């Protein structure tokens, strides 16, 4: 593993650009030079929009020159997962079915990033339609892990994770349906946040599983992740699931510490119970993180959240069911690519058959089956009841604890092709799925290294809208990891 050079942080860049110490153009060119140097090897991006980015950076410098404040992310180079709609810029979901499609509108999170002064440098690679945990399912080829190019960067937001880890962008955004931000963050040594469901608008995020999807940031530091979250969070009338509550800012609490906080290590996710396959180094680092928090004044003990062991099962019925419905819209009629046929139905089928990759087809079929008459109660209906059990178990745990702790991924970054069997790949999501089912926030923070010197991610979980508590703990872990 090559030791990465320290990268400029998003918060430093924004402070320097706002004070006139550096120009947005300088910052951008520095990042584009890193892209020119390594992108052909890493393949983090589906498209780099250097020209648009240069125009945007110049506009920000012009704002500064005329005394205006471009916003809290002034001049920060940002990469966006290629399932976030961007006006006039190809948005593919790394699928052949959308290859070449240019959305006529920006997603709300994208608009908010522009309003905050960010400079979008490109759209990042993902597992097709965000279905996967390694970015190997992209129709345009895999992304390599910048820390060890023989390994995957995780997924599905592997391109966004790699872009930040490689220094292509100071900040990036992904979407997390079952761990698609947190797991790649863990595998690339970056910080990744899945915010509370409903805090970041899903308007313009191409839907995979609507009751689980949430946009969040990747960053090299906890403070950058906080700044990224604050830039995109907030109520949006265009998303009917957007929560109206005023959100608490997290940045003012980054140095609050954890003195007196009650932190529970989730027994079921520590590798010695029913759930297997955890690498010993990952468990050891998670315990070391718990010890570091105790040393910082937190009250740390173990807590049982029994139903999390059923999370994977429930998720792999609920998410494909929602996906089978959401992806019905790709029928060759209104957008994307078409394969023609003798009649409309033949055209629909030919288009979908040619346009979707194997994993997407697998999940569409799984969902179609789980929702079909006669099987609905046995599969989808039961899975939704399990979802309730998980929410109830978390609620009980949070009676005694402020936040919970677990590994993010059961393993460090793994070699390409190592998990070609779908069920084996799905097990990567064991620790991250419960938070999507409950809608609650969770963050992955790098903490030490595991097998082959690759980074380990520790996950912090909090009750609904508990981002402030998450970030307090994350900041302490980051300090202890120096």
């Amino acid at each position, binding site marked *: 593993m090559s030791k990465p050079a320290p990268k400029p942080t998003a918060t430093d860049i924004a402070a320097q650009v706002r004070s006139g110490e550096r120009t947005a153009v300088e910052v951008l060119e520095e990042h584009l030079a890193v892209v020119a140097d390594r992108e052909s090897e890493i393949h983090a991006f589906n498209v780099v929009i250097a020209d648009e980015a240069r125009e945007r950076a110049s506009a920000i410098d012009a704002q500064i020159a005329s005394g205006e404040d471009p916003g809290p992310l002034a001049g920060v180079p940002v990469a966006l997962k290629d399932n976030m709609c961007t006006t006039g810029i190809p948005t593919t979901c790394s699928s052949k079915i959308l290859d070449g499609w240019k*959305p006529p509108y920006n997603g709300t999170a994208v608009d908010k990033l522009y309003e905050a002064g960010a400079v979008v440098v490109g759209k990042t690679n993902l597992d097709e339609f965000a279905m996967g945990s390694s970015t190997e399912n992209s129709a345009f080829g895999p992304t390599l892990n910048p820390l060890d190019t023989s390994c995957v960067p995780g997924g599905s937001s592997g391109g966004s994770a790699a872009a930040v880890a490689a220094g292509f962008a100071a900040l990036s955004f992904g979407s997390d349906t079952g761990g698609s931000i947190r797991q790649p963050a863990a595998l690339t040594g970056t910080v990744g946040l899945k915010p509370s469901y409903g805090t970041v608008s899903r308007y313009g995020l191409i839907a995979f599983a609507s009751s689980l999807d949430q946009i969040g940031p990747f960053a090299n530091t906890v403070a950058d992740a906080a700044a990224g979250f604050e830039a995109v969070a907030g109520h949006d009338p265009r998303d009917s699931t957007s929560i109206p509550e005023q959100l608490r800012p997290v940045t003012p609490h980054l140095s609050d510490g954890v003195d007196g906080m009650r932190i529970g290590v989730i027994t079921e996710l520590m590798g010695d119970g029913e759930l297997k396959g955890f690498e010993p180094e990952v468990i050891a680092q998670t315990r070391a993180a718990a010890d570091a928090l105790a040393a910082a004044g937190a009250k740390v003990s173990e807590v049982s959240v029994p139903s999390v062991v*059923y999370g994977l099962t429930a998720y*792999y019925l609920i998410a494909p069911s929602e996906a089978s419905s959401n992806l019905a819209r790709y029928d060759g*009629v209104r957008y994307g690519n078409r394969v023609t046929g003798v*009649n409309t139905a033949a055209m629909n089928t030919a288009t979908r058959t040619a346009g979707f990759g194997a994993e997407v087809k697998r999940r569409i079929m799984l969902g179609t089956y789980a929702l079909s008459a006669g099987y609905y109660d046995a599969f989808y209906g*039961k899975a939704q009841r399990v979802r309730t059990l998980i*929410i109830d178990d978390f609620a009980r745990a949070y009676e005694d604890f402020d936040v919970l702790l677990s590994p993010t991924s059961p393993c460090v970054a793994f070699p390409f092709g190592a998990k070609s069997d779908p069920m084996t790949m799905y097990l990567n999501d064991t620790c991250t799925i419960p938070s999507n089912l409950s809608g609650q926030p969770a963050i992955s923070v790098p903490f030490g290294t595991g097998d082959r010197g690759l980074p380990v991610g520790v996950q912090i979980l909090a009750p609904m809208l508990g981002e402030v508590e998450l970030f307090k703990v994350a900041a302490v872990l980051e300090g202890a990891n120096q």
Partner: protein
Amino acid sequence: MVDDAAHELDRDEVAKVAGLAMLELTDEELDTFTPQLGAILAHAQDMENLDLADVAPTHHPYPLVNVMRPDVVAEDAGGPELRDAVLAAAPDVEDNRFKVPPALGGD
């Protein structure tokens, strides 16, 4: 219809489900997908250990209610430019409409 998760998925059922999802599978794909989907569904057997009779289903992390707004045209609803941009991204159009092959016939 069988109403339990213990039912084993066979090749014909996978082909039928693919048809419902408007997908066509080759023989090789049926050979691959049938055991893979079977293995994933077998995992669902886990839930048989749970007593879920008195547990309400969760459809959504938040209890959802209808979100209403006044029925007025939004300022940013988009005019002819947006329409043109949408149509420009469509596979086939005619007279400002999406065009598809004949709905009937051809089978």
